[in-house]
């Protein structure tokens, strides 16, 4: 906690934390949006979300290391690969749990999460990995604020992906079909929409978005096979705060979470940063619920 006084003595440090938080938050926003999508359309809380992110990072890593392709190419490659994996998961497993209760979806996707976690651990090894994008660092304010160019590029790319996604959801036929199914699946079916195809596409799209996010993570930060759960919890926290249909809310909450994490890591120590994320979820849930209880309602 002594670091706290440092923040007041050297304001640029605070700026550093905020910038880091926002850059990180951009990636959280992608994963959170995907989770909200699957939750809203298919009523599934996708616990394996974080593993999709990490897997995307590994795909990007392997592509670059094996084929020598440019690092940035990892993003579309990871997106396509994860789309295929998500689509396949839907047609083998997920389609069986779409109509069931939320506990079933949580436990089943938790099982998938463990499965993929261990699979990645066995196949890729348990080291922390990263990818060197070759970009440099900006140094501002007498070296008090350093900003990695890779992180900024990653942030911009995440933004572009978000814009593309929004345009897709609004203008394309599949996007409209997805939104119709989210509002009323039975009506959509009656009107001729193949909801099974919509679900498969949605689940694949979510995985693709996570995969792209993961490809950004591996070059801007690091990845590790067991890192998935914290991404899942981050996404869930953001969705709880922002609500299901609210993209600007998701973005704002994601930034907020990123910055809060940086501050927590700085003041409490890096070893407590993860605990902070998990406890923050609990605090937010309890606070939300207490507020609702005053109106004699419950968080549903």
């Amino acid at each position, binding site marked *: 906690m002594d670091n706290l006084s440092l923040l007041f003595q050297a304001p640029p440090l605070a700026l550093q934390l905020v910038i880091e938080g926002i850059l990180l938050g951009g990636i959280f926003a992608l994963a959170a949006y995907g989770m909200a999508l699957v939750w809203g359309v298919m009523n599934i*809380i996708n616990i394996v979300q974080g593993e999709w992110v990490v897997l995307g990072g590994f795909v990007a890593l392997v592509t670059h290391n094996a084929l020598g392709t440019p690092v940035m190419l990892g993003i579309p490659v990871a997106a396509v690969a994860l789309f295929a994996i998500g689509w396949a998961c839907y047609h083998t497993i997920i389609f069986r749990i779409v109509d069931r209760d939320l*506990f079933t979806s949580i436990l089943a996707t938790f099982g*998938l999460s463990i499965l993929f976690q*261990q699979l990645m651990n066995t196949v890729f090894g348990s080291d922390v990995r990263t990818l060197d994008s070759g970009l440099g660092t900006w140094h501002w304010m007498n070296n008090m604020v350093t900003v990695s160019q890779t992180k900024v590029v990653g942030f911009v790319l995440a933004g572009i992906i978000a814009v593309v996604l929004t345009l897709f959801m609004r203008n394309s036929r599949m996007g409209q079909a997805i939104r119709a199914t989210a509002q009323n699946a039975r009506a959509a079916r009656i009107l001729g929409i193949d909801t099974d195809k919509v679900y498969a596409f949605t689940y694949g799209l979510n995985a693709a978005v996570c995969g792209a996010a993961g490809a950004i993570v591996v070059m801007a930060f690091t990845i590790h096979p067991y890192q998935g759960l914290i991404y899942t919890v981050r996404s869930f926290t953001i969705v709880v705060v922002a609500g299901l249909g609210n993209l600007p809310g998701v973005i704002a909450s994601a930034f907020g979470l990123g910055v809060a994490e940086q501050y927590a890591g700085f003041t409490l120590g890096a070893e407590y940063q993860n605990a902070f994320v*998990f406890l923050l979820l609990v605090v937010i*849930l309890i606070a939300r619920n207490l507020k609702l209880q005053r109106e004699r309602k*419950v*968080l*549903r």
Partner: protein
Amino acid sequence: MTDASISTAGGAGKAKIAGGYSTLLVLSIAAPLLFPAYVTQFTFLWILVVIALCWNIMGGEMGYNSFGNIVFFGVGMYTASVVQVGMFADVAQYTAAKGGVSLDLTVTQYLVGMGLGILAGAVLSVIVAGVLGLGMLGLRGHYFAIGTLGLGIAAGELAAGWEYIGAGSGMVPPQFPASLDRGNILYFMSFVLAIATFFALRRLYRGRFGLALNAIRDDEDKAEAMGLHTTLYKTVAWCVSAFFTAMAGAITGYVVGFIDPIYVAFAGITYGVWMVLMTVLGGKGTIWGPVIGAAVFHITQELFWTYLLGWQRVALGLLIVLIVVFFPKGIVGYVRDKFPERFGYKVDAATADAATDPALGQTAGKSGGSQ
């Protein structure tokens, strides 16, 4: 769950049941003596039975699927060793030495310390359950599930950062006295704990408590609207769950011989999810379900370890998915749906008059009913 089938069993039925229990008792006592090489596996069987039974209180009987019961497991584990060490030495120095310090306890000191430690762990876990429950038990459904998941993982992370109990290096429980038969003693401790838990829960479920939990599970709003003290029942349920889970955790610490904050104590992705899986596999909301589920799971896990080494965790993840997707009712649940009359679910027009009562008109005579 209705115990109608047992309570209405005639003399012959009751004798069969007593015979069944006796057989189990004899087998359980004989097993470690006949197969001493497997005593640790047998011990783990009873530990898994206990944590599954405890999870079932929350998830199976009450419908509050907790992914955070591991918190009590870890609290029990750490508290037992901390209290045991603390009675004879300075805990901070002991943990800082990372196992280098030997306590040189007499047998009596060790056993007394262990006993008090396990008890303290159970009591502390009950308090933790009560405090956490204030905030958590107001959450419903998936929010409770994921919120408790967050708690479970956070507990591990916090323990990994707390120097007093050894932080990331973990903590070594005091050396088991060489003059004692460690394997058998820990086995019988876990076996006695399993029996105590089973019969305590069975007693609880027989009375109002069981029905109240089921009512909360089936329709909590209705239960409130009928005046049930739902908050009280939920809290007591979690405290009972915490009590026995903590003792199971404490014994596990001694069996493993090393307390790692994330992989042994607050092990969310192993013990934490196993307790859920075993109960689902055996049958949620039944008293024997968790026991059978634990046994089947344990055997399967041992087989995976032996024949799929390296891939056993992957296989476990796959197993979870398969069970949840294809077999959600579990073994006992499946049997109960197939043979409802054997569990007491039947139409019994013993004294009612089918001729004059319109409500009985169409379906009288049909047994079991349809879904």
